[in-house]
């Protein structure tokens, strides 16, 4: 660093090193105690964050005497109110994941990391944990003081209270998570009687520890260094996406406000930013938004509230930090949403995925049928010269009752008879049932080596509940 002229000559490469010297990287050495300033975005975050109440009470919703939404892993079923989805219909899950991913992308390309700022469990839980911390230990300066103070009875009492509240929320989080996968009332019953299976205890312990550590201690470090979505969303934004942005043209250079300067335009040597650091103090991840959009910014908009309140006080217009695109800040023409082809592509994919899911859910059916023809032997010649084929029927009864079904066949060979289904056959509800069916046809009528045949099963009580499957009837090679 001794020779400044040398460094200037070295050009761009050295500039990187110089920038690096002033670049602060948050590695979590210091706990961030963010201020809470009331405002529009603060309220918005309370509202969006409270959507997570669904996570806690959702498992207790009942529908027709069963849990309304249940990912029943043990029985390999997914219940959503009236709908039961079995593993056979799992293809819809891939569409759902596609839908969610594309929604994330589309929203991010329009309005940047909305998910991070307002909906993500990490930021919402952290917000809740720090809210509790503020209620118990006081505002940020008091918290810093308390952290530095030697251990005393008061400190132990406050810390113990805070950590037990945190742990309670963490345990409740673990319980609520588990309750989506097993009947919630059964779960509580087993929990209170210490009768959970091993996997239940492990899940609960992992979620409790995870919530406690991630929301209580790691906090913004998770967003900085653990979360892949922070990075993925970072690259989904472009100069057209709106995000909390510091209006650098209006604000720079920052300068302390001087009472004698008044409102005279010639006296305003500095920009509108008065360098009050309120935007940094309220930031839950501790970034300085004036350095531009950056990895640590979760776009929660809390700095907008802080800056606006200051601007009101000093009598300057609001919006020094505001939701704006880079194009707008740099004075480039602002494009409309329909001029953003990437977003349109995302929306198209969303619509397609949605159509697929709607199609899937409306065509679930009550029965599915698969028919596997016997391959060795393909057919049997009986003593009277008739030809017999053997089929393995795999039936999935998706209703909630056992059902008796009749077996019918269309096409096939003239004079064929179905053996093995003289009485209606029992299919167990919620799982697969298989049975063997024979089809026998007079040898003289079997004209082809392969004759198409369509099987149909229909409920003995309600013939409209049915399923079809096309298969083949095999015979000897014609002479």
């Amino acid at each position, binding site marked *: *660093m001794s020779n400044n002229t040398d460094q200037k000559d070295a050009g761009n490469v050295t500039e990187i090193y110089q920038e690096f010297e002033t670049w602060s990287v948050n590695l979590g050495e210091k706990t961030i105690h963010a201020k809470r300033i009331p405002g529009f975005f603060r309220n918005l975050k309370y509202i969006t964050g409270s959507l997570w109440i669904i996570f806690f009470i959702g498992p207790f919703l009942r529908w027709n005497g069963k849990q309304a939404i249940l990912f029943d892993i043990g029985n390999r079923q997914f219940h959503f109110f009236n709908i039961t989805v079995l593993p056979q219909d799992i293809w819809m899950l891939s569409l759902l994941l596609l839908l969610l991913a594309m929604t994330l992308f589309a929203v991010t390309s329009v309005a940047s990391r909305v998910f991070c700022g307002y909906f993500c469990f990490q930021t919402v839980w952290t917000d809740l944990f720090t809210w509790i911390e503020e209620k118990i230990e006081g505002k940020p300066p008091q918290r810093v003081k308390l952290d530095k103070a030697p251990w005393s009875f008061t400190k132990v009492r406050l810390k113990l209270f805070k950590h037990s509240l945190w742990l309670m929320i963490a345990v409740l989080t673990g319980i609520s998570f588990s309750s989506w996968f097993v009947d919630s009332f059964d779960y509580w019953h087993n929990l209170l009687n210490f009768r959970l299976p091993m996997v239940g205890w492990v899940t609960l312990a992992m979620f409790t520890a995870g919530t406690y550590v991630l929301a209580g201690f790691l906090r913004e470090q998770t967003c900085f260094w653990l979360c892949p979505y922070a990075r993925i969303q970072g690259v989904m934004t472009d100069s057209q996406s709106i995000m909390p942005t510091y209006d650098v043209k209006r604000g720079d250079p920052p300068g302390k406000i001087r009472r004698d300067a008044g409102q005279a335009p010639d006296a305003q040597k500095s920009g509108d930013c008065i360098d009050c650091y309120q935007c940094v103090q309220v930031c839950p991840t501790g970034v300085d938004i004036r350095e531009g959009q950056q990895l640590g910014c979760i776009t929660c908009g809390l700095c907008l509230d802080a800056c606006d309140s200051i601007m009101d006080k000093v009598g300057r217009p609001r919006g020094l930090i505001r939701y704006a695109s880079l194009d707008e800040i740099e004075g480039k023409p602002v494009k409309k949403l329909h001029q953003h082809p990437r977003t349109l592509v995302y929306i198209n994919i969303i619509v397609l995925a949605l159509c697929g899911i709607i199609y899937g859910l409306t065509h679930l059916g009550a029965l599915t049928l698969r028919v596997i023809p*016997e391959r*060795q*032997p393909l057919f*049997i*010649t*009986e*003593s*009277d*010269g008739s030809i*017999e084929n*053997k089929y393995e029927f795999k039936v999935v009864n998706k209703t909630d009752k056992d059902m008796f079904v009749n077996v019918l066949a269309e096409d096939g060979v003239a004079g064929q008879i179905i053996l093995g289904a003289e009485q209606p056959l029992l299919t167990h509800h919620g799982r697969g049932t298989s049975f*063997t069916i*024979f089809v026998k046809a007079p*040898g003289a009528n079997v004209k082809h080596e392969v004759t198409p045949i369509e099987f149909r099963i229909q409920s003995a009580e309600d013939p409209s509940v049915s399923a079809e499957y096309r298969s083949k009837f095999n015979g000897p090679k014609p002479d």
Partner: protein
Amino acid sequence: MSEKHDEVSGATTTGHVWDEDLADFTNQPPRWWMLGLAASAIWVVVYWLYYPSVPLPAANSYFKGVGNWSAIREMEADTGEVDAVRGKYENKLKDLTPAAILADNDLTEYVKRSGKVLFGDNCAGCHGTNGVGVKSKKDGLFAPVLNDDDWLYGGKISDIHTTITGGRQGMMVAHHDTLSEQQIDDVAKYVIALSEGRGDSEAAGKAVFMSSDCVGCHGADAKGMQAMGSANLTDKIWRFDGSLEGVKRTIAYGVNSGDPKARIAIMPNFKEAGKLSESDIKKLAVYVYKFGGGQAETPPAAVPAETAAPAKAAK
């Protein structure tokens, strides 16, 4: 390591310099990394002590490990688990007749699945995979097809069980000494015509059939007798070979007649062979029955009452 210092920062380096000014700092690895290393070292020691690890060639042995683990013991424990699952079915099978097993859907399903291996190991060699029969150009069908509804010795579950238990030996005398070549030709044509449903068109052959010893075993109606295993000659299924040459050979040289050209039809006695347990034989009987050709007991009351009845009543 000599004390070297970086010119710019003054930090200690290893002393190696690349590309004129690129040097390696002597920073400690992170604490968590060192802890991981120490833990791995401890793990290695524990692992070596717990499991068999050190060969002792002098004693022709090895260090057994404090955990006393061996692959065989682990395998035995695992097979125990499988046996426990099968046990509840196998215990039931022991006390039931094959007919009673057939009456129980769960047991039948179990037998259909577990019988596959038994059949493959013991039966498929002659009867073919899934009982489709094994054919050769020279000798025709080696052992009967088990899928169809034609049974030499009966297709009821008890018949099949008896067949597997005691084995079967076909018998048909050679006729090349008692019948002339012309007579053999005639009667062969008659038998083929019978199978095609136009028996009366072969009057010459019919005359030979009726006047010779054919009727003794196959009966005047040529439908055979299951009690002695003589074939039904009026159906479309041939035990050996349905071509004219094939039928003539069967008539001329017989089955198991001792003649070198005779047809061979021997099913071993599986009970005496001792390889299969009682349960295995029952399973195989049900398995074969379920190929599709099995014939119901008529009337149903003929199910041996003393053993099958309690099982039925329990259902």
